[in-house]
C-alpha cells in the first residue's frame, strides 16, 4: 500500500485507499443523538421521527446523490415498508424486527419491479413516473380502507423488542433506541455500499452515463440494484416510523412525504450521506419548533422554512454541509 502511494504526487492513491476509514468527527452526530435523548425527553417523539427520517433520507441519497436518479416518489417504498409492518401487527404478528425485515423485503420487491419499468427514463420523465407511482399507491391505500384503515388509519401494538423492551407510548424510551439502532445499522450499510466499488460506480453513473456505458458498465442493471437497496432501506425506515408510533395513516404514501424528504436531502447536501443528517434535522426543527418561538398566529414556519431554502441555495450551493467544504479542504491541504 505504501508502495502504491509513493508513486503518485498529491496522495491521490492514498486518498482513495483511505476514503472509507472512519474519522473522529463522524462520532459527532451520534454523540448529539445520545445527548438529545437525555436532554429533551419532551421532544423525544419528534427526535425519534428525526432519526427515522434521516434513515429515509439516507436511502434517498443513495439514488439521488450517488446514482443521480432523482425521485419524487420515494414514499412508495417508505409507505410499503410501513404498511407491511403495520398490517402484520394489526393481524397479530406483533414481533417488530421480523415485521421490519419483511417491510424491507416488500419495499425492495417493489423497487425491483418498478425499477425495471421506470429506470429506463431520465430527468423530468423519471421524476413524473416516480411521482405517479407514489400517488397511485396512495390512492390504492385510500380506496382499500377496509384493509389499510385509509385516511383515518389504524392504531396497533407491537410486542416487546427481543421480548425484553416494550415500546413506550408516552416517553418513547425504547422507541428512540430502536430507531437509533436501525439508523446506525442502515447508515453503516449505506456507508459500506458507497465506499465499495459498487458505490463508486454509481458516482460514475451520476457524473457521466455515456462514459459508464463505454467502460463496459451495465448501467441499467446497476441502477436497478441501487434502487432495490435504497427501496429496502426506505422500507425499513417506513416500518420503524409506524412501529415507534403505533399508528399508520395513508400519510406514509403522501406526495408531501416524497417531496419533503427530497427537499430535506438537498438542503443538507446530496451525495455525502451526512447531508441527510443535517438536512432532516434543520428542516424538521424549523418546521416544528418555529411555532414555539414565534407562535401560530400567523404560522411563521412556512416563511422561515421558505427563506431558509432560498438562502441556502444562494449562499450554500452544495447544501448546508457544503458550507464546510472549503474549511475541510484547507485543513486537508495543511495536514497533507
Amino acid at each position, binding site marked *: 500500500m505504501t508502495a502504491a502511494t509513493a508513486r503518485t504526487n498529491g496522495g491521490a492513491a492514498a486518498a482513495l485507499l483511505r476514503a472509507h476509514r472512519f474519522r473522529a468527527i463522524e462520532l459527532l452526530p451520534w454523540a448529539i443523538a445520545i445527548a438529545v435523548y437525555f436532554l429533551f425527553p419532551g421532544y423525544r417523539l419528534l427526535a425519534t421521527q428525526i432519526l427515522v427520517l434521516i434513515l429515509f433520507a439516507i436511502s434517498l441519497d443513495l439514488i439521488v446523490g450517488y446514482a443521480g436518479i432523482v425521485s419524487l416518489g420515494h414514499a412508495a417504498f417508505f409507505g410499503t415498508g410501513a404498511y407491511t409492518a403495520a398490517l402484520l401487527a394489526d393481524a397479530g404478528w406483533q414481533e417488530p424486527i421480523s415485521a421490519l425485515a419483511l417491510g424491507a423485503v416488500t419495499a425492495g420487491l417493489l423497487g425491483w419491479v418498478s425499477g425495471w419499468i421506470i429506470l429506463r427514463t431520465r430527468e423530468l420523465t423519471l421524476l413524473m413516473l416516480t411521482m405517479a407511482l407514489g400517488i397511485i399507491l396512495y390512492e390504492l391505500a385510500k380506496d382499500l380502507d377496509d384493509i389499510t384503515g385509509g385516511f383515518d388509519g389504524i392504531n396497533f401494538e407491537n410486542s416487546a423488542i427481543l421480548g425484553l423492551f416494550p415500546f413506550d*407510548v408516552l416517553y418513547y424510551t425504547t422507541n428512540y433506541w430502536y430507531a437509533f439502532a436501525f439508523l446506525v445499522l442502515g447508515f453503516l450499510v449505506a456507508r459500506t455500499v458507497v465506499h465499495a466499488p459498487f458505490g463508486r460506480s454509481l458516482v460514475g453513473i451520476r457524473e457521466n452515463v455515456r462514459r459508464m456505458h463505454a467502460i463496459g458498465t451495465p448501467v441499467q442493471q446497476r441502477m436497478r440494484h441501487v434502487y432495490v437497496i435504497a427501496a429496502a432501506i426506505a422500507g425499513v425506515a417506513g416500518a420503524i416510523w409506524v412501529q415507534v408510533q403505533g399508528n399508520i*395513516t395513508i400519510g406514509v404514501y403522501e406526495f408531501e412525504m416524497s417531496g419533503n424528504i427530497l427537499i430535506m436531502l438537498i438542503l443538507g447536501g446530496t451525495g455525502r450521506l451526512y447531508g441527510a443528517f443535517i438536512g432532516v434535522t434543520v428542516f424538521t426543527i424549523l418546521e416544528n419548533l418555529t411555532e414555539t418561538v414565534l407562535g401560530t398566529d400567523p404560522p411563521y414556519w412556512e416563511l422561515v422554512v421558505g427563506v431558509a431554502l432560498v438562502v441556502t441555495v444562494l449562499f450554500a450551493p452544495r447544501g448546508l454541509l457544503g458550507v464546510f467544504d472549503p474549511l475541510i479542504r484547507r485543513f486537508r491541504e495543511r495536514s497533507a
Partner: protein
Amino acid sequence: MLKHTTGLILAGAVAFAATAEAREIKVGFIAPKSGGAAQLGDQMEKGARLYMKLHAKDLGGDTIKLIVRDSKRPGGPIAKAAAQELIAREKVEILGGVIFSPNAMSIAPLVTAAKVPFVIMNAGTAFITKLSPNIARVSFTMWQAGYIMGEHAAKEMGCKTAISGYTNYPPGKDSVAAFARGFEGAGGKVIDSIPMGGPREAPDFTPFFQRVKDKKPGCFYVFVPAGNHAAGVAKTYLSLGMRKAGVKLIGPGDITQDTQLQGMGKAAVGVITAHHYHADLATPENQAFVKAWKAAYGAKSTPDFVGVGGYDGMAAVFHIIKSAKGGKITADSAIGALKGWHFNSPRGPITIDPETREIVQNVYVAQVYEDKGMLRQKKLKTFEAVKDKCKELKIGRCGK
C-alpha cells in the same frame, strides 16, 4: 445587580404566597394553523378563546394557559409529536382541539398512557371515542346529521330517490352511510353513491355532479369537509343548472358552513341541511354568542359549527377545572365530571352521554334563504337530544 435580582425573587415569592390558591392550568390545543385546513383551526381557536375571555372569572382566580400547536397536515405524526411534547415537556393537564380524525386517532394511545383528559372539539369520525377511555367529544358525529337528513328527505321533502356524493374518507363514508340508513329506513331509495375524491384533492366536483344530474334523483345528498370544498358544492350545483333540473341539494351543515355561506351567493338559496348548529339560530344563547363573537373578531367575522365546537370544548375544559376544585386533574376525575355534563350551548342544550362519552345534542333541519342581500338559514324543524346512531346500531368500527 445581585441585590436587584434577589429583590425580584423575593417579590415573586411574596406574590406567589399571596395567591397560593390560584393555579395556572396548562391546556394543550392541537389544531391546523397552516395548510389546507388552517381556517378551520383558526375558527376553533377563536371559539375556544372567546369562551375563555367571556368566562375568565368563573375559575375563581385560576388561569388557563392555552398552548397551541399546529397539526399542519391531517395525518398522525405531526399532531402526535405535538401531543407528546405538550404532555411530556409542557406538562399540560388537559388536551383539546383537533380538526381531523386521524390526528385524534394517533393521539388516543398517548392520552391513555399519560392519563390526560382529551376533549375532542371537532374530529367527527364516529368510532374514535372508543379508542381511549380518556376521550370525550363535544363536537358531533357524522351520523347525527346524516341519519336525520335521510329521514327528513324521505318523509318531508318528497324525495323517492336520492344519490349521495361524498369526499372519500371516513367522515364522508360515515355521513352517507348514516344518510342511507335514515333515507331507506323511511322508504326512500339511494340509487347511486359517488366518492368525489379525497379531502386533499382539488375540489372540482363537476364530473360527479353532472353524473348526478344525468341520473335525475329527487334529492342529492352531499358531504364534503368544511372549507373551500363546501364553497365548491353550491357553485357547481348552480353552474350545472341542477336546481332547474329538479334535483334538490341537501346535506349536513358542512355544505352551508356559515363562514362560507356569503361567498356562495345565490347558488346556496334553497339548500336544505341538517346540522347541530348554524349562526342564525334564534336562541338567546346563540344571539349573545354571535354578538360577542362579532365584538371580539369584527363585524364581518361569523362563527360556524367549528367555532362553536371550540367554544363548547372550552366550556367542557372549564367544567373539568371547576370540578377538580383546585385539586389535581386526572383523566378519571375529568372524564367522570364530563359524563352527564349538561351545558346550554349556543347550539342548544348539550350533554355528554355517560355511556359513550359522546355528545348528545339537537339537530336542526334548516334552509338557506336570502334576506336583504345576505344569505341566512331558517330553522325548519328541530330534533332534540340526538345520540350517535353509529354506536347505537353498532356499525363497523363503532361496534368493536
